[in-house]
């Protein structure tokens, strides 16, 4: 193994970034020449055949003595400050893998070994929501990209940046006979083009560098999303001749787009004049500033916030957080401000799951609707979660979090003393109503408190009791937990929760949680995933990845021994069709035999407990597991739980 001195890599990068089209590779190659003297060949003891004694007429090139294209690719990743590359190995990126571990010395990016490409990309999804920047995944040509496509789709629907690199042997005349053909494509992007923000299949290394930086730029500009770049095997494996001119473009430092000042002023006038303004927050928070700005606006208007919970937008116990009675708030609103709404139509209308799927508006006639965001400005024609088109009176294209200071300023300007008095009176009523939410939640949580299987309320309360004094992230989709964490916990920080997959591809939660835990590692946060059993069974290999890389995370398996949502759907069809209602468990349950998740985890080197079915045992089990996590290791508890 030849190590590349760090100082020389740094010189290469600095030169490339600062000087533009310079002879960086050549300079670096010259500098490293002393380290790369060709090894002496071993000589057989005595000649045996003519083939041993006579050199072939044309000697194939056996080794490289300089840098290779995949080293340059590593420099591209370093220039973009990519910390991790999640990957399950594949021959179409063997060059880049070798460069990451030998040229880059497996540091920034570090290779994270995954068991499945879907897990690799789902890790990027969770990581992106915590770190606010992309993590990379490297997937095998065609087959690895197809494996990863579900996770790419989730990230696309959730508008989270991720950098997917897919291996390929683009030149058919260079492919080895056999399976390399099955793992290569002329247009690999077509596999995922319906649900990436952009994809690129470069023709040469310079083209690759520009494509990579462009991909990163697009992925991180709102509306964000995953991107896919092809890493061609020829480009990876070509030796860079001295004097080869390559450069890595400097990433544009973008600020996110802000809404038009005139439109924001119009929105402010409507909001201040309203008797019952309501703020709906969807995929709004990107940074620490998000919840703070939303609180500031809500308090200024004394307006209730109805949170769609795709991000941690509004502190759960703030008196103006009225998500618990969101439908009632929407019904009485005369002006609605929607910030990066994920499903505005669904928020403003009822669509009942009855025959004919009847829909009725929730809003009163004449209610004004303001939409501020970019979420619906990057949609693809074939599939996505952009929902039905919802009319609005004021539509403002701009990143809501970035635009909010300007909207707040406009609202302050419109606020007369009289309107302040109206707002204060409204706020008092909201505060009084909001004060009852926690008490009501406690009263409802007591129902089934001692039941077995363990209620999701009890499970949530037991977990909260163990993490409330920690710095924590809970990564789960709370709908499956009857929203108990939002009802019982004091959720304040922007990284406390990260929403769900949005694409609904089962198998998201376990690897996304691990990606979030990886991002949290440097902050020392406790990451907890209340993980569905069906979800974990889609990608159980993440447990091995967690153990192998010592990623601290607590998985609590919400083990209801069913794909419960589907159970209810089949039950609905059975009752609708009146042909027997006692067989909906067929194909929807996982209970014969019961899955032993503790043993599963143990087999992959993860500390585990369970199955826990006595509610009194849940708290002590969590306490023991948290101690393991705080030592820097993963842990799992299998809790036999109520359906929802």
């Amino acid at each position, binding site marked *: 193994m030849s190590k590349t001195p760090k100082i020389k890599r740094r010189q290469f990068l600095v030169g490339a970034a600062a000087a533009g089209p310079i002879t960086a590779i050549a300079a670096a190659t010259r500098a490293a020449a002393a380290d790369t003297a060709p090894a002496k060949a071993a000589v057989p003891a005595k000649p045996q055949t003519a083939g041993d004694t006579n050199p072939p007429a044309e000697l194939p090139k056996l080794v490289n003595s300089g840098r290779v294209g995949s080293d340059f690719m590593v420099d591209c990743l370093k220039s973009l400050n990519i910390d991790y590359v999640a990957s399950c190995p594949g021959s179409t990126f063997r060059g880049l893998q070798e460069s990451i571990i030998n040229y880059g010395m497996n540091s920034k990016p570090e290779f994270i070994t995954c068991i499945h490409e879907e897990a690799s990309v789902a890790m990027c999804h969770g990581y992106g929501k915590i770190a606010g920047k992309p993590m990379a995944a490297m997937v095998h040509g065609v087959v690895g990209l197809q494996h990863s496509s579900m996770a790419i789709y989730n990230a696309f629907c959730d508008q989270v940046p991720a950098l997917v690199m897919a291996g390929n042997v683009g030149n058919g005349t260079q492919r080895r006979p056999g399976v390399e053909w099955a793992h290569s494509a002329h247009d690999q992007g077509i596999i995922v083009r319906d649900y990436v923000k952009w994809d690129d299949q470069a023709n040469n290394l310079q083209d690759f560098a520009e494509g990579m930086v462009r991909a990163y730029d697009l992925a991180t500009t709102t509306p964000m999303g995953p991107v896919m770049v092809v890493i061609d095997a020829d480009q990876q494996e070509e030796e860079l001749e001295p004097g080869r001119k390559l450069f890595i473009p400097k990433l544009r430092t973008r600020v996110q787009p802000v809404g038009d000042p005139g439109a924001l002023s119009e929105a402010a006038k409507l909001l201040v004049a309203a008797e019952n303004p309501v703020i709906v927050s969807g995929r709004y928070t990107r940074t620490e500033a998000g919840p703070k700005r939303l609180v500031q606006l809500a308090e200024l208007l004394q307006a209730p916030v109805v949170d769609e919970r795709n991000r941690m937008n509004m502190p759960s116990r703030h008196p103006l957080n009225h998500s618990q009675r969101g439908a009632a708030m929407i019904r009485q609103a005369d002006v609605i401000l929607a910030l990066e709404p994920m499903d505005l139509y669904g928020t403003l209308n009822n669509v*009942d*799951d*009855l025959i004919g799927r009847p829909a009725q508006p929730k809003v009163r006639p004449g209610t004004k609707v303001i939409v501020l965001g970019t979420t619906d400005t990057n949609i693809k024609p074939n599939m996505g979660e952009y929902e039905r088109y919802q009319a609005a009176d004021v539509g403002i294209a701009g990143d809501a979090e970035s635009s909010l200071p300007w909207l707040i300023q406009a609202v302050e300007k419109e606020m007369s003393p009289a309107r302040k008095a109206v707002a204060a009176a409204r706020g008092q009523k909201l505060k009084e109503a909001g004060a009852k939410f926690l008490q009501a939640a*406690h*009263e*409802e*949580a*007591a*129902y*089934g*408190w*001692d*039941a*077995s*299987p363990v*209620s*999701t*309320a009890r499970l949530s*309360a*037991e977990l*909260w*009791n163990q993490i*409330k004094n920690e710095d924590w992230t809970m990564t789960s989709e709370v*709908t499956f937990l*009857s*929203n108990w964490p939002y009802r*019982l916990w*004091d959720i304040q920080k922007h990284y406390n929760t990260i929403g769900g997959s949005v694409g609904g591809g089962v198998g998201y939660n376990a690897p996304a949680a691990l990606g979030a835990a990886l991002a949290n590692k440097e902050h020392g946060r406790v990451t907890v995933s209340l993980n569905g059993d069906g979800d974990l069974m889609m990608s159980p290999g993440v447990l091995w990845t967690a153990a192998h890389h010592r990623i601290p995370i607590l998985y609590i398996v919400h083990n209801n*021994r069913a794909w*419960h949502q589907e*159970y*209810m759907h089949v*039950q*609905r069809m*059975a*009752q*609708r069709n*009146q*042909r*027997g*209602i*006692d067989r*909906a*468990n067929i194909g929807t*349950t996982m*209970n*014969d035999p019961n899955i032993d998740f503790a043993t599963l985890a143990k087999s992959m080197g993860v500390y585990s407990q369970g199955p826990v079915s*006595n*509610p*009194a045992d849940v*708290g002590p089990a969590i306490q023991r597991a948290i101690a393991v996590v705080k030592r820097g290791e993963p842990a799992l508890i299998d809790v*036999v739980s*109520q*359906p*929802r």
Partner: protein
Amino acid sequence: MSTRVLYYGAGIFAGLMVASSAMAQDTPRGNVANGKKLFETVGCFECHGWAGQGGAAGPKLINPPAYPAFIVQLRTPRNVMPPFTTKVLGDQQAADIYSYISTFPKPPDPRTIPLLQN
């Protein structure tokens, strides 16, 4: 389903039971044990929970409404609950389920639960 609802320390299931005599006179007699079996097999637990505690998919069934209101909701729901018609669930079966859910214990006072003081 093999899973069973158990209440630690409650011990409320003692073989066949009939609905509480406190029920209205128009409440038919139901078989609690059969009601428990039906609660599990015809899917009541899916939305209402094994303990009838309710959740995001359905309201709690503890302290249910009077039988006439129960049967109206069961046969012709006012919301998105799928209907249990007489074709798939007979009147006696409905009465059995009602008898069973009427045995669900009242919850403890949340003020006595330390974890619900946080």
